[in-house]
């Protein structure tokens, strides 16, 4: 039997996240990240949920135990359509990667690329 060592990465579909309430999503992300997992969310969180995630992350930071999360999502696309202006459509959610701050490091990020380093060393 071959034993593999590494980091678990979960690719989470929009379907799975859409079944959860905002607080459940944030709780789910925090719990998984604290286990040391890297999450890639197909459609990410809305901006209010992102703020809530930052808030909850801050409340559980403990020196030597948990220093927070690394989270990266793309900026919202500029929507200049007339319909968008009339109905003030909210920013479309885009792919998001989240992991423990001591294991996930963003190397480069721009409008259409997120390049990250995942480390097994805590």
């Amino acid at each position, binding site marked *: 039997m071959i034993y593999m060592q590494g980091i678990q990465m979960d690719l989470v579909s929009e379907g799975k996240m859409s079944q959860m309430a905002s607080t459940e999503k944030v709780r789910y992300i925090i719990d998984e990240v604290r286990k040391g997992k890297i999450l890639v969310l197909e459609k990410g969180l809305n*901006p209010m949920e*992102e703020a809530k995630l930052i808030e909850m992350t*801050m409340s559980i930071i403990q020196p030597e135990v948990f220093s*927070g*999360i690394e989270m990266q*999502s793309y900026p*919202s696309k500029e929507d200049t359509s007339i319909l968008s202006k009339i109905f003030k459509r*909210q*920013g479309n959610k885009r792919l998001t990667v989240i992991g423990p*701050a001591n294991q996930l490091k963003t190397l480069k990020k721009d409008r259409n690329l997120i390049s990250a380093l995942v480390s097994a060393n805590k």
Partner: protein
Amino acid sequence: MSVIKRVKVSFSKFFDKLFKKKGACIGIYGPPNAGKTTLSNRILRDWVGNEETMGSVSHIAHETRHAKRRNSISIETKHNTINLDIVDTPGLATKIDFHDFMEEGMSDAESKKRSKEATEGVIEAVKWLEDLDGVILVMDSTENPYTQVNVTVIGNMEARNLPLLIVANKVDLPEADPGVIKEAFPQHPLVPISALEGVGMDSFYEALAKQFG
């Protein structure tokens, strides 16, 4: 007080509430060390005077760990005068590692204390987002603007349909490139400034009056 007088006072208060234009409450947001408190202090120096400051500044991140509000700052521009309440908020972050403060020469105990206070400050800053009429988002022109903090603050303002002004700070530094910030967030107005040196402040106040006046 006679009945007629009481009715008059009630009506007066009602119409005051209905028509009086209250000064907008604007939050100054951004990642740690972008220059939020330096900008707040510059605004106070320009429009309040008397040596009043919003807070101390430091090269060590998370110097501001509590939000501070200054009410009724009257700002005159070429075209109008606006009255604003300004809230200087602690730098937003998704991680706070006390080792970073130790690297700056702080003791273990001091670093852990600062780290704890910094996490509380971030929570306070996030909570303030719900009570504002608009945001000045301060970015460091020498840094990559595509940070999660910037994306989240801009997303929150767009979702709430509230006005936002991006400030590309630290243009006095040779490596500053405000054009990169404009390219990243083209849908929002941007003003390049140096809050430290007072560069670009006239344009900043004009943009402020236009966005929040």
